[in-house]
């Protein structure tokens, strides 16, 4: 089961149209999510992390379209091309929630304020499982308990506004986990929470991965989170994956200038005051007016003439890939 692929995304292009202008939010993105593993997608705001998740869940804004590429869910009954399913068709609705569940940064995106938490869990169970009424009730309580919600017998009947931020997040995970999904997509689930609450959520996610073999795609902008939770990592910049591979390789031997610059721009706890941090100059380009070639070129210290064209994605190792004209020099450097 360890290396079983749960979901494949291949050459995905998702464009968003606003005011007659086209934003190539995802411009050819490929990756796999494996059963019992965590893939972290990391990058600055606006790089396309949420659009990636929303493409998989078919939750994209109305004025957007998957222009090219494939999203394949490897379900128990064989592969399913998610990108070809109608957004609100029966098949997609059956997959969403039961097979692939999603949790968000703001739990109120997923929670309905006018229903009790218990009702919302039980609705999921009713829709997706064959459990009877009283079984659903006790399963809801069990789920809340396993998420560390105190007094679950009482809390199950309470409304979301009575829950604290951390508890709402856990309740949303309880709903997401109610049908034992094979894939959990988590879009910055802890960004608004304190680190102590984040630690509780991460414990839960680790348990899911370990005990249920859930495949996890965790979106974050925090390299610390990547180091702690990822098995695999994909670094995104302006709609492209610029570098991807096992976390050990990407963090220890980064070969893309952006990955390197990101790692050098953050202070690391425990390294004290003498560490040198380097800011990345400039800012991300206007998404409606993107550079023609490498999207990072304007901020890159290694830019050469060739960078005005888009470099190809190249494997530096069978499991480690990069999109940069000068990767060979950096790979040699990283190997030293």
């Amino acid at each position, binding site marked *: 089961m360890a290396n079983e692929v749960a979901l494949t995304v291949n050459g995905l292009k998702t464009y968003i149209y606003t005011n007659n202008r086209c934003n190539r939010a995802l411009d050819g993105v490929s990756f796999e999510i494996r059963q019992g593993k965590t893939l972290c997608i990391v990058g600055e705001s606006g790089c396309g992390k949420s659009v990636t998740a929303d493409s998989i869940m078919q939750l994209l804004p109305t004025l957007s379209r998957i222009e090219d590429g494939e999203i394949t869910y490897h379900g128990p009954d064989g592969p399913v091309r998610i990108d070809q399913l109608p957004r609100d068709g029966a098949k997609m609705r059956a997959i969403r929630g039961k097979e692939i569940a999603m949790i968000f940064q703001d739990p109120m995106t997923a929670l309905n304020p006018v229903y009790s938490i218990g009702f919302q869990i039980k609705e999921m169970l009713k829709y997706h499982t064959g459990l009877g009424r009283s079984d659903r009730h006790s399963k809801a309580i069990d789920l809340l308990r396993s998420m560390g919600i*105190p007094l679950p017998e009482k809390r199950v009947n309470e409304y979301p506004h009575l829950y604290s931020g951390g508890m709402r997040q856990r309740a949303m995970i309880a709903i997401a986990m109610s049908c034992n999904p094979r894939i959990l997509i988590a879009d910055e689930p802890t960004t608004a929470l*304190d680190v102590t609450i984040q630690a509780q959520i991460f*414990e839960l996610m680790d348990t899911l991965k370990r005990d249920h073999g859930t495949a996890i795609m965790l979106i974050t*902008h925090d390299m610390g989170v990547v180091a*702690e939770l990822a098995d695999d990592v994909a670094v995104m910049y302006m709609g492209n994956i610029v570098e991807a591979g096992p976390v050990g390789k990407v963090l220890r031997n980064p070969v893309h200038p952006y990955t390197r610059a990101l790692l050098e*721009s953050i*202070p690391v706890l425990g390294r004290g005051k003498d560490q040198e*941090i*380097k800011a990345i*100059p400039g800012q991300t380009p206007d998404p409606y007016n993107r550079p023609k070639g490498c999207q990072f070129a304007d901020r890159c210290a290694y830019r050469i003439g060739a960078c005005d064209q888009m470099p190809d994605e190249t494997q530096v190792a069978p499991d480690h890939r990069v999109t940069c004209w000068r990767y060979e020099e950096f790979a040699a450097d990283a190997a030293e």
Partner: protein
Amino acid sequence: MQPNDPILKLRDVQVHFPVKTGVFKRVTGHVRAVDGVDLDVRRGEVLGLVGESGCGKTTLGKAILQLVRATQGTVTYSGEDGETELTSLDDAGLFRFRKRLQIVFQDPHSSLNPAFTIFGSLEDPLRHYGVKTREERRKIVGDLLEAVNMRRESMDRYPHEFSGGQRQRIGIARALSIEPELIVCDEAVSALDVSIQAQVLQLLMELKREKNLTYVFITHDLSVTEYLCDRIAVMYLGKIVELCDAEDLYANTLHPYSQALLSAIPVADLDKKSRRIVLQGDVPSPVNPPSGCPFHPRCRYVVDRCKTEVPELRRFKSAKGEHMAACHLIDQPLAEQPLRTESP
């Protein structure tokens, strides 16, 4: 007035907000946002203030600047003109000191008026403090924008034309405009992407060196504080539970809450993975804080004494200067008496 002399002394500072309920808005309790803080801010230092949301960082920052008035305790400023107890002054009396003490907020959007050009927002404090001619004000604002690595011409544009990082720099320019001695930075870089965050951090440090500033740096990001700050104060439920040299907080953590907080921080270094100490439950309400040690319901070392007796902030031995912590179970305090009785 030497460097390292306290610029501000806080003694038993408390800020309690009334909780009003019902149609008649009767006061039914108090949020003890800041609940007895003793602290010296030293001239020229960067003092970090960390802790989970709701622990009172912002309120303490505002109480330092007299933007909220302490319900009890004193804040004393000392400068060239001697010592002044700010907490006993009225608004008119404070006017002279407001200029010296400034604040930069997390969201510069809410602090820059969207209807005004940048010049419009930045000239206000200058006019207030007596820069009479418009030409003079335009020159100063231009210089300030250049000081924060922006073009002079930006002054005639509106806030929405700038990115988050740029707006944050404008917020810093405004805080600098009347040449303060101390700036409270309240989550000033927290909303920024890491690559932009590093730009603003470096800017803050350059300005500090050039202008001999003192910073009180409020954040929930302990990796940033360790790198940036000279000392760090860890807060929990309105109280300081640990106060020490920034590197010492990590190398020689004394308080169980600081230990849990530090262990929860994801570290971007595969060789530094530590065991997470997962705290159960949420922070209790500051309206009804626990008896005894405020951390006792979540502390893994709790003993009976912790439930009844409030631990004082005591001084401990450390290679890196003084190290204060408020916990009954830490042995060998350097001096048994608490800070409060020490400097009258």
